[in-house]
């Protein structure tokens, strides 16, 4: 007991002279689950992006001599039906999946935050117009839209770019709504009125006073979004409408399991991407939870 109080006293002392950000960082560093998850995610990211330095096997070359080999010393995770090394494809696939997830998250958060903060800050007619537009976008049937658009643009533009743009254009609505509601609540504080009275321009009020105070929500939201968007990419690729088949991604690798023979008898072909995908998504969600706790002034974990 004594120890506990002493410890909490110490932590109380330490929070003096710390910005709210420093306090959140400390809380996050103490969250074991979140730290393990961050470590895992970071490892996955680093290994994926260093793939060319880790394996030398060709990811696209079909090798009839080595079709559907079981895991062995030569091929750690075996080979798929075209004779390509599963481990190599897993690394390169991770690169694509994570890249799509990150790019989409960045675009979605950027666009959602801009729309949401302008709507929330100005209110009135601006708010109504922007939020009706958001509703309109949110009402698009996601899958149908992605399939149609990628069918239209296929061949004209790089398939990966189209996928990123299309997913982003359809997914920012949720972020816009959340940011708007947060801004609406935050702008009632007197310090916003004060920032107007000391001569801040509206853009400065939004960027310097409102956004830093809703940033924690945006960050938490974007981690959860990141996980969701990786899943979206995998789902689309599994169905064959996502990343072009020539580029390996976790979703593309999973689509091999559409064949019942592979699903039932050759687990080494689809299990690795499935497992790594699941653990990655889980760890991203744990990180999100950890951040949420860290930013919540009432939690003391």
């Amino acid at each position, binding site marked *: 007991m004594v120890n506990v109080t002493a410890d909490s006293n110490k932590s109380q002392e330490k929070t*003096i*002279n*710390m*910005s*709210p*950000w420093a306090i959140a960082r400390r809380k996050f560093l103490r969250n074991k689950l979140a730290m393990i998850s961050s470590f895992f995610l970071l490892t996955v990211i680093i290994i994926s992006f260093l793939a060319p330095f880790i394996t030398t096997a060709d990811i696209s070359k079909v090798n009839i001599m080595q079709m559907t080999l079981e895991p062995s010393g030569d091929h750690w995770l075996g080979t798929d039906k075209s004779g390509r090394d599963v481990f190599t494809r897993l690394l390169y696939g991770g690169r694509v999946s994570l890249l799509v997830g990150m790019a989409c998250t960045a675009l979605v958060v950027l666009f959602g935050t801009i729309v949401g903060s302008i709507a929330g800050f100005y209110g009135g007619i601006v708010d109504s117009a922007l939020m009706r537009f958001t509703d309109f976008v949110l009402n698009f049937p996601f899958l149908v839209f992605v399939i149609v658009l990628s069918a239209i643009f296929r061949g004209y533009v790089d398939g990966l770019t189209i996928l990123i743009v299309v997913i982003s254009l359809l997914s920012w609505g949720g972020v816009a709504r959340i940011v708007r509601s947060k801004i609406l609540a935050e702008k009632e*504080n*007197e*310090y916003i*009125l*004060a*920032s*107007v*009275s*000391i*001569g*801040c*321009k509206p853009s*400065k009020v939004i960027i310097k*006073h409102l956004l*830093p*105070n809703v940033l924690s929500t945006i960050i938490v939201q974007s981690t959860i979004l990141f996980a969701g968007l990786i899943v979206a990419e995998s789902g689309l690729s599994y169905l064959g409408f996502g990343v072009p088949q020539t580029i390996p991604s976790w979703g593309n690798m999973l689509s091999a399991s559409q064949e019942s023979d592979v699903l039932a008898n050759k687990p080494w072909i689809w299990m690795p991407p499935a497992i790594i995908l699941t653990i990655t998504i889980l760890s991203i969600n744990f990180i999100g939870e950890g951040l949420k706790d860290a930013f919540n002034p009432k939690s003391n974990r």
Partner: protein
Amino acid sequence: MNMTETRETAAQPPETEKEILLDIQNLKTYYPIKGGFLKRTIGNVKAVDDINIQIKKGETMGLVGESGCGKSTTGRTILRLLTPTEGKILFDGKDITKIKGNALRKARQDFQMVFQDPYASLNPTQSVGDIISEPIRNYRRVSKKELKPEILELLGRVGLPAEAYDKYAHEFSGGQRQRIGIARALALKPKLIVADEPVSALDVSVQSQVLNLLKELQDEFDLTYLFIAHDLSVVKHMSDRIGVMYLGNMVEVADNKSLYAEPLHPYTQALISAIPEADPKKRKERIVLQGDVPSPANPPSGCPFHTRCPMAKAECAEIKPALKEVKPGHHVACILY
């Protein structure tokens, strides 16, 4: 209207050699009530309904009234944090009623505000140094480093240690936070400061410190105050002249002494009778008002106070009395005078 006459007389009392810094004419601020399917305006909350105030340079004008009587709205409208529905605001001879955008932003340098809630009025993500230097940096291109000596001096002036510079608002007590807020308002060396209940959220022991600080700063920086409060003893301590508001209307304006010695409006009399007396032997008659403040969305006809006035007559429900000077420098809006 009677108003114009009032204004002329108000500008003439003997000691008015001083220039008028702020001249508010027939100011009205209404909040529209939206309703129905198409969000049309179906009514107005008349938060400020036709008031006139003149404040001279270097003077402290107090504004008292119950919660919801429009004091804060008046203050915020004067600083153009709200847009008036009607009327005119002349600040230092310039009409600031309708200016917008950059012109308004430039004009804000000369009038600042001290807010009521010391907890909500400081951005939690900014350090104290940032908070106080921001107003200056909004108008001048200077680096934080260059400004630091100036900011430290300001901190010292409002009674905060130099170490406060790098700290965050959440590390301070209410009174200290209010000092930060005062330093922020002072940073631009404004001519007018509207203090919107600056001490009502503070402990009584801290209140007087902050009030005395405001008084000292007034002499030092040549400030003019519009001091808003609901606590009559606080206003008495601070103000040269006092305006009493009721339901968006100014019911009585007088200098400090004569308002307390001889309140004329029945509402002011009731307010003053409610001030607690330090001497328990001194008995005085407490006027207890009946009923609640009527809704400003649907104010009573005639005199706004007639529904609760102990001296109301039949015609009070019909005639809305204008503010008129009944004694030199003492204006009251009541048909009794």
